C-alpha cells in the first residue's frame, strides 16, 4: 500500500527541509533566549517604567497567533512606505528574515515569562543573605538570582523549545521550504498521502524526542541537586565503606 519509491525518492528533499527547520529553530531560540534574560529582569523590576512595557509586550504577543504575527511582518510591513524605501526593505522582503524575526519575537515573549516566573520563585532568604554580604544589585543577579532562576526555568523552557520546533512548520506558509512544505510538495506531486505526511511525521517525531532527550541531559547536568536521592540503607553505607 505504501509506495516506498516515493518515500526514498523524496528523502533528499526531506533532509533539505530538515536543515531549514533546524536552522530556523536554532536562530530563533538562540536570539530569543539572549533577549529574554534582560527582559525578564525588567519584568520583575519594581520600577513600573521597566516592568509595564515588558508586561504589555508579552501580553500582546502571547495573546495573538504566531501566524498573524508572521503575516503582519511578512505581508503587512510592505505596506509602510517608510520601510519600503529604507535599507531595511532588503531584509523585510526576505522570507527568511521575516520568519526569524516573527519566531524570535514570539519565543522571547514566552521565554521572558518563564524566566520571570523562575526569578519570582527565588527564596527570599537568598536575596537577604546576598545583600547582607554587601553584594551590589548587579552581583546579586549575576551570582545568585540568574544562575538558580535559569536552572529552575529549564523544565518549562524545554516545553517552549519543543513548541517552537513545532511552530517552525508555520514558516511553510511564507515560501520557506521546511519539512512541512516538503511534505505538502511531495503530496501535491505524487498524491501520496501516507508517503508524504507519514514521512514528515517520523521526522518531527524524531526531532521532538531528540530535543526532549537533550533537555533531559541538560537537566541532569544543571538540576543534579534536585534529583531524587537513591535509597541508601545503613547496610549499603557499611558495604560502601
Amino acid at each position, binding site marked *: 500500500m505504501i509506495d516506498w519509491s516515493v518515500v526514498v525518492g523524496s528523502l533528499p528533499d526531506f533532509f533539505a527541509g530538515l536543515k531549514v527547520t533546524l536552522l530556523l529553530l536554532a536562530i530563533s531560540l538562540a536570539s530569543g533566549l539572549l533577549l529574554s534574560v534582560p527582559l525578564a529582569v525588567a519584568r520583575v523590576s519594581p520600577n513600573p517604567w521597566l516592568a509595564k512595557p515588558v508586561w504589555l509586550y508579552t501580553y500582546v504577543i502571547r495573546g495573538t497567533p504566531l*501566524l498573524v504575527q508572521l503575516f503582519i511582518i511578512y505581508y503587512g510591513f510592505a505596506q509602510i512606505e517608510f520601510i519600503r524605501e529604507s535599507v531595511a526593505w532588503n531584509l523585510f522582503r526576505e522570507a527568511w528574515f521575516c520568519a526569524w524575526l516573527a519566531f524570535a519575537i514570539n519565543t522571547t515573549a514566552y521565554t521572558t515569562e518563564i524566566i520571570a516566573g523562575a526569578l519570582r520563585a527565588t527564596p527570599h532568604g537568598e536575596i537577604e543573605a546576598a545583600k547582607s554580604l554587601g553584594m551590589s544589585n548587579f552581583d546579586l543577579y549575576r551570582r545568585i538570582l540568574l544562575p538558580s532562576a535559569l536552572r529552575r526555568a529549564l523544565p518549562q523552557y524545554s516545553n517552549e523549545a519543543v513548541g517552537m*520546533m*513545532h511552530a517552525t512548520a508555520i514558516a511553510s506558509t511564507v515560501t520557506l521550504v521546511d519539512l512541512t512544505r516538503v511534505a505538502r510538495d511531495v503530496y501535491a506531486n505524487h498524491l501520496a498521502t501516507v508517503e508524504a505526511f507519514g514521512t514528515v511525521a517520523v521526522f518531527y517525531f524524531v526531532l521532538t524526542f531528540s530535543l526532549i532527550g537533550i533537555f533531559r541531559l541538560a537537566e541532569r547536568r544543571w538540576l543534579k541537586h534536585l534529583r531524587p536521592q537513591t535509597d541508601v540503607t545503613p547496610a549499603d553505607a557499611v558495604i560502601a565503606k
Partner: protein
Amino acid sequence: MILHGYLPAILEGLLTSLQVAVLSLAIACVFGLAGAAAKLSNSRAARMIVDVYTTLIRGIPELALMLMVFYGGQALLNYLVMKAGGEYIEVPAFTAGVLTIGFVFGAYMTETFRGAILAIPKGQMEAALSVGMSRVQVLRRITLPQMIRHAIPGFTNNWLIMIKATALVSIIGLDDMMQRAGLAAAATRQPLDFYLAVAAIYLAITTVSILLLSRVEKRFSLGVRKAEFK
C-alpha cells in the same frame, strides 16, 4: 470607512473562527475525558492505545497534523467508501478543520483531565463507594465537581493555545477570519491594516477568555483555602 469597508466580511470570518473553536473544544473535551478515563482504567490495552495517541499527537506540529488529517482522512474515507461501492465524498474543510483541532487538543486535554482526577484524594472515592454509591454516582457527585477546579488552569491554557491554533485552518482552505483578511488585503493592497485588525480581535478573545475562566475558577474554588505565605 472602517477597514476599507471590509469590516463586515472580517466579522463574518470571525464567526467561522469562533464556531471552529467552540466545536473543536467540545470534541477535545470528549476525547480528553475518554482519554483520561482510559489512562486511569485497569485495561492495559486501553492505556496503551491512549498512550500512543497522546505521544504521537504531542510529537508532531499542529499544522502538519492538520494537513495530514485533511488530506489523509479524505483519502482514507474515500478508500473505504469506494470499497463499499459508494461514490466519491468531498470532506468539507470546516469538518476536517474542526475534527483535526478537536482530535489534536483532545490529547492535551487528556493529560489535563488525568492530572485533575489524580489530584483528588483516592480516599474520597473509596469512601463514596463504601457508603453504597454506584460508580456513576461517585463520578457525578465526587469526581467531576472537584476535578473541574483542578482542571481549570490547564484547561485555560489549552483553550488559549487552541483559539490561536484556529488561525491555521485558513491554510486548509477554511473561510475563517485569516482567510477573509488575506482576501481583503489582496483586494486593497493594505495587508497591514487587516492583519493588525485580526491580531486585535484575537487579543480581545484571549483577554475575555482569561477574565471569564478566572471567574469560573474562583467559583469552583469557593471553600478552598489558599496557602498563605506570611
